[in-house]
């Protein structure tokens, strides 16, 4: 049973436009959500996180939105740059267990 789902395997965006990556979860106990970025042949690197007490968190070009009632979070990248081309994973955890559960990933391609 996939508790964290990224339903879009890939996304293609023009440079300078907005990229929106989506993630859905099923476990209402999740209270901490993160986005990771992964280049080929490298480990994932942390991008941005959000606690369940918030509905938005910004860091430069990256903004994460959390909709708890819909059990949905999204990552917005504005403006998108070719260097943003990578696989993006969303992840969630609950304080009770602490382990991170990852989605399947979305491969973002930003075209010049």
């Amino acid at each position: 049973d996939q508790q964290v789902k990224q339903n879009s395997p890939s996304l293609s965006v023009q440079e300078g436009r907005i990229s929106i990556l989506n993630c859905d979860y099923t476990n209402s106990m999740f209270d901490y959500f993160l986005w990771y970025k992964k280049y080929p042949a490298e480990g994932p690197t942390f991008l941005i996180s959000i606690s369940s007490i918030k509905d938005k968190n910004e860091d430069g070009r990256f903004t994460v939105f959390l909709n708890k009632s819909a059990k949905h979070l999204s990552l917005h990248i504005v403006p998108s740059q070719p260097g943003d081309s990578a696989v993006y994973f969303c992840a969630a955890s609950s304080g009770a267990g602490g382990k991170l559960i990852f989605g399947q990933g979305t491969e973002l391609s930003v075209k010049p």
Partner: protein
Amino acid sequence: DVKVTQSSRYLVKRTGEKVFLECVQDMDHENMFWYRQDPGLGLRLIYFSYDVKMKEKGDIPEGYSVSREKKERFSLILESASTNQTSMYLCASSPGYNEKLFFGSGTQLSVL
């Protein structure tokens, strides 16, 4: 700077061999994790450890075991490698619950 080091970037083994994947972190983190990444499946948790000599099964522990004799070192063991264990293996560490994970660069294991 935070550092998680995996001993090998690429590894080729034969079916039935015993395989050791080593991971070392230099951040004095309590928690360590082993994930595998497969296309379309995202990152799946194999085993994790919250303390020295402690281990917990993740979502896909079958065919694997782990060892944590020292705080900084977490080893993943494939007792008898099989072709379906061909994958990218990622080690990670974190300072505590609901904290972001720091990943190593990964080991691409091929079992022939």
